[in-house]
């Protein structure tokens, strides 16, 4: 994408490399809560960031617009805005459009113009396509075609807020104390090799999906070239982007259960697969044969979310940390236990998932021990 070279990625690095602190907090009953705890927790891991990126995703955010697609769009120039708004009004019914409320006093660096739109696909334009697919196509189009604009949030009843600064500064800038949600995903960024830029901050999002990531994918080139075959254009040039697209492809498009998708991103080793009982071995072998290009190699921890669901996953040899904790109806995922303890000192349960082991929280379903997803292929309810 050309605009990435304009002012925010002056070195035109082809992927942006992160260390980072991650934090996720979900109320499994769906009760909404405010920004206080999430901000406190992510700020507690300040040394995992360096002020060059922070971001939040909140689910249950726009109850009054819960059936509209909420687009958050960054503009680097006014021509881009005009172009995108023309495209939006051609293809969508714009229910509401406004500049994102921000606090100019916040300590952030070089913010772009940010707008939010509540949209409904134009029925005449959709023509047999599913709404999600139509929205996906339009997001890709805006991100590839309009120099200087990109959609960084496009789901329903959720939204992403991100930029260059420490997470608490970003929260202040976007006035997050005015929002509530039942699921918060937070990110404090340490881009070691590049200056931060607004588009490169986490979370990354497409439609309902959100991913925050700590690590660097050495498989990025293989992942990206595979996703391109399915129409995913990695315009942000960041390795985290492939993660969110992979989840979208596997779970939304290919309709695989989340547990199965996790086994594609971080599969068991062949030596483990070889000792499985035949039916299970068949499933795992087929997953690697078919989706080997989506194996995420190299260090990663992700917290990913979609409506009603939050997951934590690390690479299969666990080169990055992840801790999970439970207190009552709250599920926490974090890079560090200290961040969880900062907001919930007395936890019912706290543990470190193994490499490649999926932790999954679903609205109104769980109780504590079952929260680590059972192995695929073993008798259990998905």
């Amino acid at each position: 994408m050309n605009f990435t070279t304009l002012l925010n990625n002056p070195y035109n690095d082809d992927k942006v490399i992160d260390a980072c602190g991650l934090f996720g907090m979900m109320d499994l009953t769906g009760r909404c809560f405010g920004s206080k705890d999430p901000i406190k927790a992510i700020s507690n891991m300040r040394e995992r960031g360096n002020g060059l990126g922070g971001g939040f995703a909140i689910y249950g955010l726009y109850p009054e617009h819960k059936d509209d697609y909420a687009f958050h769009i960054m503009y680097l120039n006014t021509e881009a805005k005009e172009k995108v708004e023309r495209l939006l009004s051609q293809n969508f019914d714009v229910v509401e459009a406004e500049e994102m409320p921000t606090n100019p006093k916040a300590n952030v660096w070089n913010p772009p113009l940010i707008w939010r739109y509540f949209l409904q696909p134009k029925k005449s334009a959709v023509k047999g396509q599913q709404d999600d697919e139509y929205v996906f196509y339009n997001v890709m189009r805006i991100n590839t075609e309009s120099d200087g604009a990109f959609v960084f949030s496009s789901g329903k009843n959720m939204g992403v807020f991100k930029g260059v600064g420490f997470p608490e500064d970003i929260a202040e800038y976007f006035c997050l104390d005015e929002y509530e949600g039942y699921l918060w995903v937070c990110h404090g960024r340490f881009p070691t090799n590049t200056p931060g830029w607004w588009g490169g901050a986490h979370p990354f999002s497409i439609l309902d999906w959100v991913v925050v990531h700590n690590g660097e994918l050495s498989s990025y080139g293989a992942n990206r070239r595979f996703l391109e075959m399915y129409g995913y254009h990695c315009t942000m040039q960041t390795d985290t982007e492939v993660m969110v697209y992979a989840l979208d492809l596997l779970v939304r498009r290919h309709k695989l259960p989340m547990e199965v998708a996790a086994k594609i991103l971080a599969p068991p080793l062949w030596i483990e697969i070889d000792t499985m009982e035949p039916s299970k071995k068949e499933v795992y072998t087929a997953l690697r044969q078919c989706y080997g290009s989506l194996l995420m190699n190299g260090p990663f921890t992700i917290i990913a979310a979609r409506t009603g669901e939050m997951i934590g996953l690390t690479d299969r040899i666990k080169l990055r940390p992840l801790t999970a904790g439970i207190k009552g109806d709250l599920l926490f995922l974090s890079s560090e236990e200290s961040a969880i303890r900062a907001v919930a000192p007395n936890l019912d349960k706290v543990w470190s998932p193994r490499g490649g082991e999926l932790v999954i929280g679903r609205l109104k379903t769980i109780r504590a021990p079952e929260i680590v997803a059972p192995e695929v292929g073993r008798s259990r309810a998905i």
Partner: protein
Amino acid sequence: MKSYIEPEFIVERDDQKCIRCKVCINQCTYDTHYYDPEDDVIRSRDENCVNCHRCVVFCPTKAITIKRNTTRYTENWHWTQEVITAIKKQAESGGVILTGMGCDKPHYTYWDKILLNASQVTNPSIDPLREPMELRTFLGPKPDKLELELENGDVVLKTKLSPQLCVETPILFAAMSYGAVSFNVHLALARAAAQFGTLMNTGEGGLDKRLYKYGDHIIVQVASGRFGVSLDYLNVGAAIEIKIGQGAKPGIGGHLPGEKVTVEISRTRMIPVGTDALSPAPHHDIYSIEDLHQLIYALKEATDYIKPVGVKIAAVHNSAAIASGMVRAGADFIVLDGVRGSTGAAPKVIRDNVGIPIELALASVDQRLREEGIRNKTSIIVSGGIRGSADIVKAIALGADAVYIGTAALVAIGCTLCQKCYTGKCPWGIATTDPWISKRVNPDIAARRLVNLLQAWSLEIKEMMGGMGINSIESLRGNRSQLRGVGLTDTELKILGIKMAGE
């Protein structure tokens, strides 16, 4: 006619060291050495020497040194020694100049202009001595998506995958026919493939019945001559490969001279003893992509659709478009053989001037298949002068699933690239059917050397992958971000789909 061709090599023998054991005389299949009883010395006919090093290695006292003849024609960049010698040869013979093995011209070897990435701080390298590294590779078409279903809480696979070949390392032994190489070489290749968990390819000469027990590790080839092709042959292999073209001689058929067609070769090829085995340049039932489609499906039908059927072509100008057609015609894997591909015999002018480097063909084919959204429908195997594990890693990062090695496998057995395979007198017992010379390859030792080579290269691949922070070969495949070019033009970089070093 008096020959004007001077010896290419000079054999030097340290008479002090020589013990007159006559090993060199016995070992040389070109009658280079002879004993002079009058003076009790061993002498050499330099003009016969092909620099195969058989005598050098086997001389018990290391008395022999072979030097290039330093007598040269007057230096001329245009009219080189090679050009002048070729003209003289043709003026004396009136024939096509034959040669063996691969192209030796200084065309670019792009592998040497491509460098690999390594992990540093943010993405730590992985130590293959402590962490698992996975090289297992499946060859065959993959579906675009998997359908899964839940039955009583179990995840059950609904999609049935097409037949796949499983190899434990992305290295296969290239097609070398029985006839072009000796039985012992075939046996050693089959044993090594079975032992290491990979595959050998029969080449176009059929498969001796004695090797049928290794069928699970053999790809059987169907070439234009249809030599040795029977239902048993098709069924015994793990996969079938239709050979359309070959890197050393694109557009050229094969020729096994009658002298090489012994009783055993005649039985395997299903032709009379002593007759020339001519494989035509084209398949006479394939003049279009639809014809190829029919042959692919005829072979699938004949073998009950239980094994992959692939197609091999020589890398040429429009490989990408041809490859796309091959995939659409049903090829479960495609083999691209580059200009450095080897052969037992080819016209030298063809070997040295026809085809394109495999690196470029691979890059454009992989990209084209991806753009057309059919990359999953096939696997890509590349061959043609793969010299080491670094070439393999670069090939996989460019987009190959696996590589074939031919020359390198023969070098492991003893070949010294003397390029005289077409004479049938290979002093190493490799490219020959002469029963006496063939015994020089001990199949046990040759198999061990081959397994050692596969093991050494696999370890090196793991080291390189670990250095890049990758622990599974599927994350390397098509991962061009791990490659950078040095000293290449913009167009070359564009075709290879890689960035310039420093970018």
